[in-house]
């Protein structure tokens, strides 16, 4: 078996090298070139209303937002739907210039990527069955909770239950997490308010209750995600600030969420 083990390590290394190798050969394009050519922006269009496919076209809040920001920064952009996992491969390998996909900024991710200044404050809500004893975030302790993997909801719950707690179930989508709640496998779902509110609106007959607890959950922000050391970050940070201040942001926000944003929270 010993020789087998060595074989595996070699095999794994070959895979890694080939994966990283592509980045070295194609990195010349995006970053660093100052000719203001069209930037490749990657997204995972499966998270309405931020980004989703509408009859073959990518639409959503993120799309409208990035169009305005890119114009402000003076770049042409081409948004490509790559799916979730490939999105990170493309950005890390620098085959894409940056990503926008309701991506939550956190310290662990900052080790590998650079994030723009926050452009969206995510509010999490707790979805529980009618008659549940859970009244706020503090009541989640000791309860089983479902979230979507890699979302702000997960971040929020992990601050309460602990990282990778056995009581936390991470699903591939918020829909599956809600189904788990209905199946009785968990006591609550924590997810983006926009997503769960959409669910409750579309399923008025479900006996579920939404609980807001902005005080208890730590604030989670979305940002554009760049390869580490990208020179584009500065340009886009500036453009985002401008768009936030000149009212264009509020216009797009109003259009998608029928409410006025609290822009001051984003500039903290």
């Amino acid at each position, binding site marked *: 078996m010993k020789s087998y083990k060595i074989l595996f390590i070699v095999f794994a290394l070959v895979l890694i*090298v080939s994966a990283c190798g592509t980045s070295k050969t194609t990195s010349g394009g995006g970053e660093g070139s100052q000719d203001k050519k069209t930037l490749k922006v990657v997204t995972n269009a499966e998270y309405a209303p931020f980004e989703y496919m509408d009859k073959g076209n990518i639409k959503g809040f993120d799309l409208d937002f990035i169009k305005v920001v890119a114009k402000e920064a003076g770049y042409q952009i081409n948004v490509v739907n790559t799916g979730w996992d490939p999105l990170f491969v493309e950005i890390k390998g620098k085959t894409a210039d940056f990503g926008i996909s309701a991506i939550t900024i956190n310290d662990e991710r900052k080790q*590998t990527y650079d994030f723009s200044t926050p452009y969206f404050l995510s509010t999490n809500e707790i979805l529980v069955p009618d008659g549940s004893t859970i009244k706020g975030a503090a009541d989640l302790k000791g309860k089983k909770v479902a979230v979507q993997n*890699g979302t702000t909801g997960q971040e929020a719950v992990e601050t309460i239950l602990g990282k990778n707690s056995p009581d936390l179930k991470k699903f591939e989508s918020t829909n599956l997490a809600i189904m788990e709640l209905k199946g009785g496998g968990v006591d609550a779902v924590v997810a983006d308010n926009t997503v769960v509110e959409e669910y409750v609106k579309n399923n008025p007959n479900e006996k579920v209750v939404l609980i807001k607890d902005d005080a208890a959950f730590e604030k989670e922000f979305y940002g554009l995600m760049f390869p580490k050391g990208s020179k584009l970050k500065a340009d886009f940070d500036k453009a985002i600030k401008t768009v936030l201040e000149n009212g264009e942001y509020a216009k797009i926000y109003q259009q998608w969420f029928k409410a006025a944003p609290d822009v001051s929270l984003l500039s903290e």
Partner: protein
Amino acid sequence: MDFRFDLISEYSSFFLKGTMLTIGLSIASILFGTILGLLIGLGKMMKNNFLAQPFAWYIVFFRGTPFLVQILLIHFAVVPLFLGKTNAIVAAILALSFCSAAYIAEIFRAGIQSIDRGQMEAARSLGMNHLQAMRYVILPQAFKRMIPPLGNEFIVLIKDSSLAALIAAPELMYWGRAMQGQYFRVWEPYLTAAVIYLLLTLSLSFLLTKLERRLATG
């Protein structure tokens, strides 16, 4: 080269836990799937067409529909019906067993039908009933021929168990995805998971080759 071995070691206890559950799911499903597959295979071979039909349908259904859909159906619809609430581990074992049983049934049927008709006739002419002839004469010979295709099926089963991550059964791929979600790094979790799956499937092939050699006679 940018490969964060430190992240893997940070997640090593989760990968270990996940591997244990993957092994557990696989062993349980191989066991149940094999027994169920044998029964369904025998059922489909019944001479009475009317009785054999449901077994044929079973195979058509579980072979002909995506495993992804099966595991979701069993997790969200079937298990709550019996347990009153969802249970990812039970659902994963059921889905893997049910699905592999359909393939195993066909492997059994092919194995049994590959045995010369004269073997059954000789056994029956010696006064054995059908069950005795199956048990002492046909199945031992058929089983030897079934090992390579069964090995294939078991390896597919081990890898398919990674779909249990979808229903949040905390197996190997679940922790790989969790690590991906936390750090947004793709290669560290997935290559680690791949190497562990490779180790598991290689160990299984090794055991099956040994078994096959031991059963080789004459």
